[in-house]
C-alpha cells in the first residue's frame, strides 16, 4: 500500500502541513523546493503505512531544530539530516529501514522526504505531534516511553554532536544550546525506534492526511467549492474529528513579542456574518494555543486551532497574520492518542501556563449548540 510521492504531492503536503501546523512550523517554501529537487533527480519517494513496518525494523526520524528564519538565509546543503541519521546508525550499530517526521508543519514535514530520497528508504506515514509544538519532548514517542536520547546533530560544515542525556526534556535543553552554537539551526536525527514502537506510539497517517487536505484545499480554487466544507469532509474521514468553524471575522490586532526564544502574543478578530458583535482572541507561542470568544474558551491545546484565509481556505501562519485579513478560525479535534492523561501533562493547557483543565473542543462545541 505504498504511496509514491511526486512534486505535486509535495505542493499539497506544504499546504496541509501548514494547516495541521496551527500557525507554526515556519515557511514551508524552502523545504518544498528541497524535496522537489530530490524528486527531479531520484524520482518519486515511497511513503509507507506504519503497519507495513515489521516489528523489528529500525526507524530513525529526522528534523531541523532552531530558527527557521535563519535557514531561509543560510540554506543547508541538503545532506545534513542524512549525516545525522548515518551517525545515529553508526553509533547505535543499526541500519535505518525507514525515516519519518517528528511533527506536522512547514519545514519538518518535508525534511524526512529529502533524507528518504537520498538514502533510498521510505518515509513512514506518521509523526509524533499530530500538529506542530515548540519543544522536542512534546512527542507521543516521549509520552509513550521512547526516549529522545541519543540524538545526533549536524551543521552545514560537517560539525557533529552525538548527544546522550538522562531524558527527553534534558535533550531538548542541551540540543537547543547546541543549535545556537551551530549558527541557530541544527539538523537532527532522534527518537530512534523499532517498527513496533512506531506502530504503538506514533500518530498514524498524518502525512497522507496533510497531502489530502492540501490537495482538497488547492482544488477548490479551480472547482470553486467551499474550502471549509472540503476540510470538514477530509477531517471527518481521518483519525482527527470533523473540523469545527469557531469564528469568522476580520483581524483587528496582532500583538507579538519575543520571550525566552519564542514568539508569544495574541491575535484579535472582530466577528462578521453570524459572528457579528463578537470578538475572538487567540493566544500563541509560535503555535496557536487557546481560542476565546468574548472571554469564553472555545478551543485549547492540544486541539488544533488554525486560521484560514476566508476566500481561498489557505492556512495563515502566525507570522503572516495582519490587520484587515478576513479569516475563518477552525478547530480540529485531535485523535485520542494526543489526549491521554500523560499527553495532556506534556502539552495540555497547564503546561503552557493556563489555569484550567483540558476540555475537548467537541464537548465545548456541543454544549454551545445545545444552548442555542
Amino acid at each position: 500500500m505504498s504511496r509514491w510521492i511526486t512534486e505535486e504531492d509535495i505542493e499539497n503536503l506544504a499546504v496541509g502541513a501548514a494547516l495541521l501546523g496551527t500557525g507554526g512550523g515556519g515557511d514551508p517554501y524552502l523545504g518544498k523546493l528541497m524535496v522537489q529537487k530530490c524528486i527531479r533527480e531520484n524520482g518519486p519517494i515511497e511513503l509507507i503505512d506504519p503497519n507495513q513496518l515489521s516489528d523489528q525494523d529500525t526507524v530513525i526520524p529526522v528534523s531541523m531544530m532552531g530558527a527557521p528564519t535563519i535557514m531561509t538565509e543560510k540554506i543547508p546543503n541538503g545532506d545534513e539530516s542524512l549525516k545525522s541519521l548515518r551517525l545515529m546508525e553508526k553509533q547505535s550499530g543499526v541500519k535505518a529501514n525507514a525515516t519519518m517526521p517528528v511533527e506536522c508543519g512547514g519545514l519538518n514535514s518535508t525534511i524526512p522526504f529529502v533524507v528518504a530520497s537520498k538514502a533510498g528508504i521510505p518515509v513512514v506515514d506518521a509523526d509524533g505531534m499530530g500538529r506542530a509544538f515548540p519543544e522536542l519532548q512534546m512527542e507521543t514517542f516521549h509520552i509513550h516511553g521512547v526516549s529522545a536520547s541519543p540524538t545526533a546533530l549536524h551543521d552545514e560544515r560537517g560539525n557533529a554532536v552525538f548527544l546522550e542525556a538522562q531524558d527527553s526534556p534534558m535533550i531538548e535543553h542541551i540540543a537547543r544550546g547546541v543549535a545556537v552554537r551551530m549558527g541557530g539551526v541544527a539538523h537532527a536525527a532522534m527518537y530512534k525506534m523499532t517498527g513496533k514502537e512506531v506502530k504503538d506510539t506514533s500518530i498514524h497517517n498524518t502525512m497522507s492526511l496533510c497531502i489530502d487536505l492540501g490537495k482538497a484545499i488547492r482544488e477548490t480554487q479551480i472547482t470553486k467549492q467551499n474550502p471549509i466544507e472540503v476540510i470538514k469532509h477530509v477531517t471527518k474521514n481521518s483519525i482527527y474529528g470533523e473540523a469545527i468553524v469557531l469564528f469568522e471575522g476580520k483581524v483587528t490586532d496582532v500583538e507579538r513579542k519575543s520571550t525566552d526564544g519564542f514568539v508569544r502574543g495574541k491575535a484579535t478578530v472582530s466577528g462578521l456574518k453570524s459572528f457579528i458583535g463578537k470578538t475572538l482572541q487567540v493566544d500563541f507561542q509560535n503555535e496557536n494555543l487557546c481560542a476565546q470568544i468574548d472571554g469564553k474558551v472555545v478551543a485549547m491545546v492540544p486541539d488544533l486551532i488554525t486560521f484560514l484565509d476566508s476566500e481561498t481556505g489557505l492556512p495563515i501562519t502566525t507570522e503572516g497574520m495582519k490587520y484587515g485579513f478576513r479569516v475563518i478560525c477552525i478547530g480540529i479535534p485531535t485523535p485520542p492518542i494526543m489526549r491521554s492523561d500523560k499527553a495532556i501533562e506534556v502539552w495540555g493547557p497547564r503546561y503552557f501556563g493556563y489555569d484550567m483543565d483540558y476540555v475537548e473542543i467537541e464537548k465545548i462545541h456541543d454544549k454551545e449548540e445545545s444552548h442555542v
Partner: protein
Amino acid sequence: MYKIGIDVGGTNTDAVVLDKQNHVIAEVKSSTTEDVESGIYQALEKILEVSQVDPKDIDTVMLGTTHATNAIIERSRLTKIACVRICLPAGTAVEPMFTWDESLKKAAGDTYYFVHGGCETDGRPLAGEHLDYQECADILSKIKESDVQSLAVTAVFSPVLDTYEKEFQKIAYDVLGEEFPVTISSEIGSMGLLERENSAALNAALVNVAKAVSDGLEQSLLKYGINARIYFAQNDGTLMEMEHAKKYPILTIGSGPTNSIRGAAELSGLKDCIICDIGGTTTDIGILVNGFPRESSVAVTIGGVKTNFRMPDIVSIGIGGGSIVRFDDGNVTVGPDSVGYRITEDAIAFGGDVLTATDCLLATGRVHIEHPNINLDRLKTIPQSVLDQAVSTITAQVEMAIDKIKTSAGSVPVVLVGGGSILIPGDIEGASEVIRPKHAGCANALGAAIAQVSGDIDKMYSMAGVSREKVLQQASKEAKDKAIAGGALAETVEIIDLEVLPMAYVTSEFVRIKAKAAGKMNI
C-alpha cells in the same frame, strides 16, 4: 526653475511640469509606445509646447518607468548572466535559478557557481575571513571565456556583512575589467537568500535595458536643450540618480503604483491617508503612512520569479468604470471583467449594448459626463432595483477593500483619483472624509516628480551587552547615512520607518531591525 515628471504606464505616458513649490504648471498625456523611448520623446515635446517653459529653466527630470517590468515579463532584451553564490561549505541544497522556468533561463542564462565564504547570523565566517582569491579568479576566467555579460553575486547573510560580496566584485573587476557589470545582492534585497538572489539575478539581466533607457532619455533631453539632473523613481516612493538606476534597474519595478499613491497624496496635501485609484478595469488601493506608501510584507513575484522586494502594499479589485454589470434572478454582480477602453462604444449610455458600472451611475443622475454620444434615455429600460443594487455593490466592494488595507480600525481620509472615480459619488464608510483633488489624472507623473531620496537597512543586530536604545540608534544612523550618501539633504533626513523583529526558536540575543530614512533632494 522647473522640474518635469514623466510616468510611463501600460497605456499612457504622462508628463507634468512643476515649479519649485510643486505646483502643477502643465500636464499632458500621450500614448505609450512599444519601444517606450519614443513615447517619452513625444510626451516631452508635448509638455514643452503646452507649458511654454524655457528648456533652460528645467533643472530636474524624474522618470517613472515600466521598462524593467516589461522586459522581465516579456523575457525580451535581457542580458546573459551568471549567478555566484558565496555560501560554501553551506548553501547548496537548492541551486540558483532552480525555480526559473525554461523561457527565462533561455533569455537570461542559467550558469551558476558556488564559492567558499559568507557568514553566520552573528557575522562569524562560514569559511574564512576572506575569499580565496585563486578560487574566485578561476571561476571568473571561465566566465570571461563564456557569453556571460553580467554577474549577480549573493553571499550568505550579506545583509549582516557585505564584505564577501564586495571582495568578489573587486576580484571580478581585476579579471573582467572595471566596466563589467557586477550586481551585489546586499545592495538590492533583504533577508531571505533565495529571494534576494533572484532579485540580484533579475537586476543583472536588466543592465542593458537600463542603459538603453538612460541613454535614450539623455539624448532626447539634449535634443530639446534640457540640461537637467536625471532621476528614476523607485518602488518605495523615493528617487535614485540615473547612475544608480543604471546599476540597479530592478529597483524601478513597482514604481507606477507608488507614484500614483504619492502623487494623489501631494494633490490632497495629506501625509496619512488611503488612496483609491479607480481606473477602467480595476481599482488599486494603497495606504500612505507618514508620507510614504506602506510596503507589502509578502514576497513579490515578478514574471514568475519570487523576490523579496520592497513594494507598495496594494489591494486590487475588479471594479472600474467599464466593469460589466449582470443581473439574474434578482442577483446583481459588477465586474471583474470590463469593456476597458471600448467604454465609449460598448456602454449602453454611449449607444452600445453592454451594461457597465458607469451606466448605472449615470442613471442615478448623481454624476454627469460630457460626451457627445451620451443619451441617458437608453438607460430607462433598466429596472431601478438593478441600478440601485449595482451602485451599492460598487460602493460596498470598494469599502471592503479600503477596510482591508487599513492599519487600524479608526476612520482615515480617502483620496479618490483616476478616471473611474465617478463610481463613488457619495461617502465611504470608514472614511473620515472623501477627497477628490484637481489634476487627479496626472497623479502618477506628479508622484515621480516629488519623490524623495532615501536610505534603508534590514539587518540582524546582536543585543548582547548593548542597550536596546543603542542598537536602535546605530540602526537609525546607518539608514540616515545611506540616505545622505544617496543625495538627500542632511538636515531634512528623518527616519520614516523603524521596525524590530524578533526571531523565533533562538535563545540568543539577536534581533532583526528594518530602518528607513528619507529626505528632500539636495539640489
